[in-house]
């Protein structure tokens, strides 16, 4: 049985991935989670997670690697989907994981530049009328969507936004991540 390492940022990413894997009906026993804490750790080749993972890959204990991290925003040219993808690909190459890796960069699919994070992806899966309402609320209150506190998004999602519990995995915005995971387990 091939073992899959999933590298993620924090607790929420893990919860969502675990939930989605169960929802799809994939074998969760094949997964070993590697929390990276913050996004910048994904680009630190000497991070203990990478050392531990490299040893496990070398030793055939891990056969596939999946990265899931936030796109964040394009502000000051530091984030966004393209920048994050470029930096991640450099890291995957330097780790020597090209042939065994897949990744998904979490973002709000409604944004033109594919910006955002796991929390904004979740918010994007609520019914449209509620979403419009929340968008208006965020705009009116001046909440800085470009650099605001991510946990606020999660709180809004959890407490007022979503009628389904806990996540709306059948939403079209989960399709890309669902495909990635299905292929990861199938390869």
């Amino acid at each position, binding site marked *: 049985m091939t073992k899959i390492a999933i590298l993620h940022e924090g607790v929420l990413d893990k919860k969502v991935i675990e939930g989605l894997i169960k929802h799809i009906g994939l074998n969760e026993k094949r997964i*070993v*989670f*590697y*929390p990276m804490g913050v996004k910048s750790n994904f680009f630190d080749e000497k991070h*203990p*997670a990478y*050392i*531990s993972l490299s*040893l*496990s890959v*070398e*030793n*055939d*204990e891990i056969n596939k690697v999946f990265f899931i991290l936030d796109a964040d925003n394009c502000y000051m040219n530091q984030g966004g989907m393209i920048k994050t993808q470029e930096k991640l690909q450099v890291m995957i190459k330097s780790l020597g994981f090209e042939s065994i890796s897949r990744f998904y960069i979490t973002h709000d699919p409604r944004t033109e530049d594919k910006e955002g994070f796991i929390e904004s992806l979740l918010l994007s899966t609520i019914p449209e009328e509620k979403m419009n309402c929340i968008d208006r609320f965020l705009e009116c209150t001046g909440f800085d969507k470009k650099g605001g506190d991510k946990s606020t998004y999660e709180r809004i999602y959890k407490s007022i936004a979503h009628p389904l519990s806990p996540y709306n995995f059948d939403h079209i915005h989960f399709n890309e991540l669902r495909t990635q995971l299905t292929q990861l387990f199938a390869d």
Partner: protein
Amino acid sequence: MTAPTTAHFLTDIEIKQFKCFTDFKASGFKRVNLIGGKNNVGKTAFMEACYVNVCAINVNAMATAIHDIKFARENLNILQNLFHNKSIDKIQILDTTKNYSTKSCLRKIEFHISEKNAIKEYNFSIDSELVIINAKEFNLIFEYIKNIKLIDNFGWSDNELAEAYEAIQKHEKETDLSALVQEFDDSIDSFKLIGGTKPQCKIKGEWRDITEFGDGLRHYISIICAFYAGENGYLFIDEIDNGIYYDHLDRLWEIIFTLSKKTNCQIFATTHSKEMLESFARVAKKLDEQDISYTRLVKNKNQELKSITFDYAVIKYSTENAHEVR
């Protein structure tokens, strides 16, 4: 006062040939090194390879070390043979190791037995200096390096313990040792070597032989004494958790971390116990003891023996995230 040098520490080893090892490499050793892996993977053999390498400062010391690792494994059989009046031939014991070849940060050594004109020859090589001794002329002279100690799976005999206890006496640490023994078993008032050779514990004013107590106590005392005896040297312990109750593991590691630093003694210990590894990681984190490593021996899908060495940061990360490192 200058800090003691750690230049003698073994940081890496390449085992070209020895027992189950062929072209095997391991590196990243620190002051305190734990070795793990499944049963029969070669943990003890790996430690033996390291032991012989550090001992091999000359031909006699090298031959003694090669002899001793086999002797340690054959302890029970040798004892039984003696009981049946069968003598032990030290050369015969040495002969069981046909090949040994390692290269470390300290030295490159090789040993093999060959045959020339139907006469056996013993080939010793230390840093490319080759010594060939004809079997007829070979006289194995035991030479022990005083500050390299090995505690095998069977534990130390009274004599070995007595010898190491001398170092405790030299350092005037008898009271400290007794206090540690008391911590281990609060019914014991103190520990002493009566008549210089008989390890005894005092309970309610009466001295009792250590053999009356569990193996764990002897093992525990041996480890503490071995650190003092191995000052500026090395300590090798096979199955470190032998006989030690899980409740004492954290305290044992605290003592090991403290004494290894105090005596500047590098330690290699094997275990297959999950509790021991967890305790090792837990205490290292608590004391912020970073000069540690955990080496796991594994077989890959081609059945080749490999080593995976985790340093402090990786041990901490792996245990915090419940990754299987055993």
